[in-house]
């Protein structure tokens, strides 16, 4: 073998080994899920779901954001609430909850909310069930496909204001009674109704895996968004900025080592995408103009970038924690000693 062939072979071996390791990382990644970041249990959600949000609690709790702002928001209250919850249910949210998914929008114009919350983690089923039964007044239960569904404030017609049920040992679903019952029944039958919602699933698949939080929504949900914004002339100005309609929106974010936010909105056509991008750029430019009075806004403006790709508008924002600290209102110096001074 010639020397050049040896180099080519060595190079190919490195690339091949890297590809194998990379494929192994995909296969063994604990973040691997049924569809995008959704676990298999969440595919039992109703097919009419219009938006889904997700929060990776483990990443959230481990992030600098949680360390900085949870303590600042209520250093004394938070652990107490968690301690009470842990005492009653054996559940420590920081330790035991892995993921939280919020879904809804099945009947956007309906009189009753139909939101669902799916929580995955490690639960003491007995303690949680007992806490539900004993801590709340007016809790009743019924069996749907062999699974106990707890109903809150059930009326004479047999409808409750809310419901909760264990989909399995590691998954709790909470929300509107009809939606919970649909989900429980689908799970018991082994159905995956959400797979029928191909539009939403394709959006979920586009979520950047490993994100700390994310949200996808289709045009049904986004139809309720404002169609115009007041022009920079001020509230008295008769002009307003027309916002192009969005067909879908995908938001992903990370909190470590800085707050990163990626928004991808799909519009009807390229012109609308460019218009929307211009509107966003306009607001970023306004922030830049304010930099004379508030120097920290200069950095804020440069932290946001906007680009278009055919009918899509992509907004990427990267906020270092130092920047977020600088734009927050200064806290009173006494805040550090607040617990001792509070009666």
């Amino acid at each position, binding site marked *: 073998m010639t*020397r050049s062939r040896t180099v080519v072979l060595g190079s190919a071996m490195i690339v091949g080994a*890297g590809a194998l390791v990379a494929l192994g990382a995909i296969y063994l*990644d604990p973040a691997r899920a049924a569809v995008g970041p959704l676990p298999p249990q969440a595919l039992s959600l109703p097919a009419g779901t219009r938006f889904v949000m997700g929060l990776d609690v483990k990443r959230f709790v481990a992030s600098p954001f949680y360390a900085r702002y949870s303590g600042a928001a209520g250093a004394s209250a938070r652990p107490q609430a968690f301690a009470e919850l842990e005492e009653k249910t054996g559940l420590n949210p920081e330790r035991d909850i892995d993921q939280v998914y919020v879904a809804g929008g099945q009947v956007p114009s309906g009189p009753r909310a139909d939101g669902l919350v799916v929580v995955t983690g490690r639960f003491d089923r007995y303690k949680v069930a007992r806490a539900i039964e004993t801590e709340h007044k007016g809790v009743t239960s019924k069996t749907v496909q062999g699974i106990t569904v707890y109903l809150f404030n059930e009326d004479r017609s047999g409808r409750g204001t809310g419901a909760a049920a264990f989909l399995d040992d590691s998954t709790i679903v909470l929300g509107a009674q009809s939606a919970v019952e649909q989900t429980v029944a689908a799970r018991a039958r082994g159905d995956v109704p959400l797979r029928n919602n191909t539009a939403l699933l394709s959006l979920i698949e586009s979520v950047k895996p490993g994100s700390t939080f994310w949200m996808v929504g289709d045009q049904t949900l986004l139809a309720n968004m404002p169609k115009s914004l007041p022009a920079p002339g001020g509230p008295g100005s008769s002009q307003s900025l027309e916002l192009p309609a969005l067909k879908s929106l995908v938001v992903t974010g990370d909190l*470590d*080592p800085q707050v990163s936010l990626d928004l991808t909105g799909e519009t009807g056509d390229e012109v609308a995408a460019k218009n929307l991008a211009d509107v966003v750029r306009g607001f970023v430019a306004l922030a830049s103009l304010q930099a004379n009075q508030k120097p920290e806004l200069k950095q804020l403006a440069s932290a946001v970038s906007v680009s278009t*790709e055919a009918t899509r508008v992509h907004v990427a924002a990267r906020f270092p924690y130092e920047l977020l600290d600088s734009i927050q209102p200064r806290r009173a110096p006494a805040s550090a000693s607040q617990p001792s001074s509070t009666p």
Partner: protein
Amino acid sequence: MSASAAARPPAPESTAGRDTSRPVPFPRAARAVFDLALEGMVWSRRSLLMAILLGLPIAFGLLFRGVIVSRLPPRMTAFDLYGFVIAIYYIRNALPLAALFYATALIADEVDGRTITYLLTRPVRRGAILFGKFAAYLVTTACLTLPAVVITFFLLTTTRGWTGVGARVPDLFRDLGVVVLTLLAYGAFFTLMGVLLRRPVIPGLLFLFVWELVANLPGYMPRLTITAYLRSLIRHRPPDEGLAEIFGQVLPTALCLEALGAMIVVFLAAALWIFAAREYVLEQ
């Protein structure tokens, strides 16, 4: 390919049974030129310099893991940094430079070294010569770049452990594809410049660092560059400044692939046509 190598008499078994009045068949000729050109390209001072240039991100990755990540307040994630390396360092700068220095030299070196005569007097078609040399360029640069990209990826994305690496893997494969496409597109363009111009390096540098800035302008102007299509194919969008920040646009993937494919074919066909038709008269 050196003149002595080109002038070397063919092996007896290669001529046995072949009609010597006709040129060597294209695949065999291209393969022979490829082998000779690869041997000359891989072990050369140019490749040593290019290996250092293209391998710099590995050193940076090691430095980042060992020193920077633990001492400096992190402004961006390690994956953002990897994206920066791919988008800014490789796609916009290092790979076009590597293509410039290799591809313009495919024929120009033979002319400068006055060995082109020996090459052209062999019983091989000119197309086979150009094709074999271009393939050798592609293999050489890919061998220098692809391992560096893979190693940099793992060095940077595993800074905080292996969690979430699987999610980044599709980007790695996409980046490897775009890297090869970058080498192909710029290689084809600079091969054309190499056969067209006597001194192609300065015009090539002007093209890279002046004309390619058009990619930052609004409207349809970016479509007149190569880099706009390549930048659009990768998913990394590092924050830009100035015109790029204001007018930055991402072209549709299908359009990029079609445009780059067309460019590669047109540039190589033009280079082949010029090389086949041109009469090389060496100065005494």
